[in-house]
């Protein structure tokens, strides 16, 4: 299980990385960030890129900062960085909870937030987070920067809107309001395994205790994580209750179209939605 041969390129500036990609992408050159998905695929020879453009030495890609109401995450920020809150309020806490579900601690030392989005594994956590939190992707190439909404970026199973010569230089996530409530629940076979189903719920309660702007996303079930509008509609304007959450969970189970093992994954969708809602907001 040794990778097929390749040439390794280690640019130190973004411009250099972009020109390398422009030159090598047509030959199936790939970006190497954390490598925790790409290198196993190469060891198994499922992936055989003849060139790797290693962005770990590119200056400025390790940015992790809050500015202008946004959390900016550079291309080489590792999962482990999120284990302690990186943003004020609910967003930092939410990311710190979610990150504990990503593989295992040593993998989190190298794997990157942006790499996970580029890999677009439907069972991965960050794509679900990006979709539910309406993150924006910053794609960079010799043609310049391009901003892509997460929902447009994630196109399918292991498929994104990134052009072959583009590099995901960073992601921006809007901060959550201080009063935002959230819940995240994941089911996997063993600790650290990929999700069989996961739900991320974010909502607020108005002064009357009614749910406003609920966001409910499901990952691990379909080819791409997505928000379920029908479930959000069930919740909008309602007062939290066990019955309401059960109805929402039922709606979620009905709304998904699982890739495999449909009956079981629907049942898991119901369970994770219900539990995430209860976590977000004690009924």
């Amino acid at each position, binding site marked *: 299980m040794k990778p097929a041969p390749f040439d390794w390129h280690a640019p130190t500036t973004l411009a250099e990385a972009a020109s390398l990609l422009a030159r090598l992408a047509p030959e199936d050159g790939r970006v190497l960030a954390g*490598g925790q998905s790409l290198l196993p695929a190469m*060891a198994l020879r499922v992936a055989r890129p003849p060139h790797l453009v290693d962005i770990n030495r590119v200056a400025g890609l390790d940015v992790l900062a809050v500015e202008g109401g946004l959390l900016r995450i550079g291309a080489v920020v590792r999962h482990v960085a999120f284990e302690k809150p990186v943003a004020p309020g609910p967003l930092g806490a939410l990311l710190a909870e979610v990150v504990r579900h990503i593989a*295992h601690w040593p*993998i989190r030392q190298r794997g990157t937030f942006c790499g996970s989005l580029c890999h677009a594994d439907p069972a991965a956590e960050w794509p679900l987070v990006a979709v539910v939190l309406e993150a924006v992707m910053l794609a960079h190439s010799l043609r310049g920067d391009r901003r892509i909404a997460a929902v447009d970026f994630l196109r399918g199973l292991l498929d994104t809107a990134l052009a072959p010569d583009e590099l995901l230089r960073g992601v921006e996530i809007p901060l959550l309001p201080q009063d935002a409530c959230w819940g995240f629940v994941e089911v996997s076979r063993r600790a650290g395994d990929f999700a069989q189903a996961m739900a991320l719920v974010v909502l607020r309660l108005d002064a009357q205790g009614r749910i406003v702007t609920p966001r409910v996303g499901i990952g691990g079930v379909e080819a791409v994580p997505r928000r379920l509008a029908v479930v959000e509609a069930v919740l909008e304007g309602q007062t939290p209750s066990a019955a309401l959450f059960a109805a929402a969970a039922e709606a979620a189970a009905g709304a998904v179209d699982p890739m495999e093992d449909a009956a079981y994954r629907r049942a898991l969708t119901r369970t994770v939605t219900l539990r995430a809602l209860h976590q977000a907001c004690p009924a």
Partner: protein
Amino acid sequence: MKDHALTLTVNGAAHRITVPARRSLADALREDCGLTGTHLGCEHGVCGACTVLVDGAPIRACLMLAVQAEGAEIRTVEGLASGGTLNPLQQAFTDHHALQCGFCTPGFLMLATAMLEENPAMEEAEMVDRLSANLCRCTGYTNILRAVQAVAAARR
């Protein structure tokens, strides 16, 4: 596909090596530096037998290229003991019968080293979560946890 000449700093010693880009850090440690204590159990990042510390962080040496490790401080199982004396974690592993075949042991020792350096006051649940990164097929894990807890208790 050119070879790369580089220097790896392992347990404080410099190793001047020449490797192709595809050589993993684990293979470089084993084949080029002669440090075969780092084991390969899966080569796809799941089993943790190849866990080493790179600048203090526990990583899978099978999922890092040797060329990426230049300039980093690498620590492996060979660096734990001082001369003939096992370090406290190694000693705890033998005292608590935390190894049988010993193949996974270097990976667990390095993982636990990183855990204890990060936070010796870790709760048991947190320890279990961290240790779940590595696979052992002989011990059933219980004694590995006991060994790590014993060292943690002594450090607090």
